[in-house]
């Protein structure tokens, strides 16, 4: 597709898959791989990278690499949970709306449109201002806001399938709702939904990190990569690379997921054309 083919898989997709695999390892085993603890003060603030500390020390003298490894769970975990919940909400509701049609569909679609009329960050800020930034609120807010986009996609997909003759054949047999959802719609909607899952994860991941960067995301005592950028960003003014490490890690994971999703969608125009 974009790069020379490696077997039947383009180089970019191989690269992306490697990054994904690495992220998974970090997520599962991060804290165990870290040489030092999250909060251990080991030296001067903003110390340069050395053999003992490959990424140097942060603004409090803590080992950057260990904090990154510890923070993986939080960064990846929060966004992953939020996206899984958003799919659990958005997909069934979207399918149902398309199947049932009529008033529930119309009202649901209009409601989703209204919520989507407000930029996600603004909505999130509004809610966070009211309810604070605890982990459940953070995950719940992102999940709900994201579920609107998932709902819209699921609805469009299901509408496209419901008008096919094979869906009509099933209806003519008197098949019930459960059969239609599970056997007719879902298998045919799965590929685009999975690609969308990847894109939604990218978005949620960047979003959580962005909120943490603004100071409104993951709160102490928990630490995630976005928060780490915020904490040591002053170092950039002294020519230090410190904040680029967590920011770069965020960027790398996002690139990886995007490459894989792009490969999955190769040759297929995204339904809504949106990436975030």
């Amino acid at each position, binding site marked *: 597709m*974009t790069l020379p083919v490696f077997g039947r898989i383009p180089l970019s997709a191989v690269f992306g898959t490697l990054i994904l695999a690495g992220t998974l390892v970090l997520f599962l085993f991060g804290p165990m791989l870290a040489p030092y603890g999250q909060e251990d003060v080991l030296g001067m603030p903003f110390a340069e990278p050395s053999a003992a500390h490959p990424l140097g020390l942060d603004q409090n003298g803590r080992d950057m690499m260990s904090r990154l490894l510890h923070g993986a769970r939080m960064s990846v975990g929060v966004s992953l949970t939020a996206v899984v919940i958003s799919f659990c909400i958005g997909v069934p509701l979207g399918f149902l709306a398309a199947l049932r049609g009529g008033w529930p569909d119309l009202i649901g679609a209009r409601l989703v449109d209204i919520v989507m*009329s407000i930029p996600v960050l603004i909505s999130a800020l509004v809610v966070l201002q009211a309810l604070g930034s605890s982990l459940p609120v953070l995950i719940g807010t992102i999940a709900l806001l994201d579920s609107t986009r998932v709902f819209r996609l699921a609805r469009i997909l299901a509408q496209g399938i419901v008008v096919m003759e094979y869906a009509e054949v099933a209806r003519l047999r008197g098949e019930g709702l459960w059969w239609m959802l599970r056997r007719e719609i879902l298998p045919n909607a799965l590929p685009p939904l999975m690609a969308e899952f990847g894109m939604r994860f990218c978005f949620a991941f960047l979003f959580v990190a962005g909120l943490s960067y603004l100071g*409104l995301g993951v709160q102490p005592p928990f630490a995630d990569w976005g928060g780490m950028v915020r904490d040591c960003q002053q170092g950039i003014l002294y020519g230090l690379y410190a904040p680029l490490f967590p920011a770069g890690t965020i960027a790398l994971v996002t690139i990886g997921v995007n490459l894989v999703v792009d490969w999955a969608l190769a040759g297929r125009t995204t339904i809504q054309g949106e990436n975030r």
Partner: protein
Amino acid sequence: MAWLILQRLGLGVITLVLVSMLVFTGTEILPGDVAAAILGQNATPESLAALRQELGLDSGPVARYLAWASGILHGDLGQSLANRQPVGELLWPRFGNTMALAGYAAVIAVPLAVGLGISSAALRGSFFDRAANVVALATVSLPEYFLGLLLILFVSVQWGLLPSLADTWSGMGLAAWLQATTLPMLVLVLVTVAQIMRMTRTTVLAVMDQPFIETACLKGLPMGRVVLVHAVPNALGPTINVVAFNLTYLIAGVVLVETIFNYNGLGRFMVDAVSKRDVPMVQAAAMVFAAVHVVMNMLADIAAIALNPRLRHPRVKES
């Protein structure tokens, strides 16, 4: 067609009203006692009572909403809890700053991105196309703070070309303003160009895959003419939607960029207001951002309608 446009306008107005309700509900969903949560440690029975009255918490939610909404229509956005000043005075100048920065970025990003998107679609599969796609994909994945910090590190600190903080004030002159805001503008441009370029490319390719393009090629028309005269006009409607969609994404990006560079815009101000629980401020800022989003989408919709030949030249009833 005029009827459709009127419909869209009406829909836009209704959407704004519903959005205002959502914003209001969102800000007022504090569990427990609003006043206590805001005053926290400094709460005394008198100050609590005063604050409750000021926020109008005695009356029910509907009455409060109506009061707030009618206030907006009259230009009264309430009083900031943190600064004790009218929200309007604090908000509008900063809103102007934000729009100026967003406009600066948009004016450069949109033509560049659309041009790149059309070119890579026309040159599908070529080295230029593949390289552009890879670069765009990478850029799209980079968070704004990564790009911002990177630019600050090199352009500001190491090479000393541009300031790292975007300090602006009224009456500073265009040249100085441009110098201050160029780094934040660059970050915004980088992120949006990539997005718009990719989506424009997809849109133009979708048009290029249609049968009438093959017919144009078979008429022996040169490729340039096929793309510019036949493909692009049909891609205009969807492309406008793409641009509008991304410009509203720009709003979210603006919030982050303003924070990185300490730019005195509405985005950064809103983030501060959120951390201070300044309810009227957050409500007003959210409403403004949402309104911009709704209006832009509505204009894009109307433009798409106006450009649709089927709607501009309806089928004539033949006998």
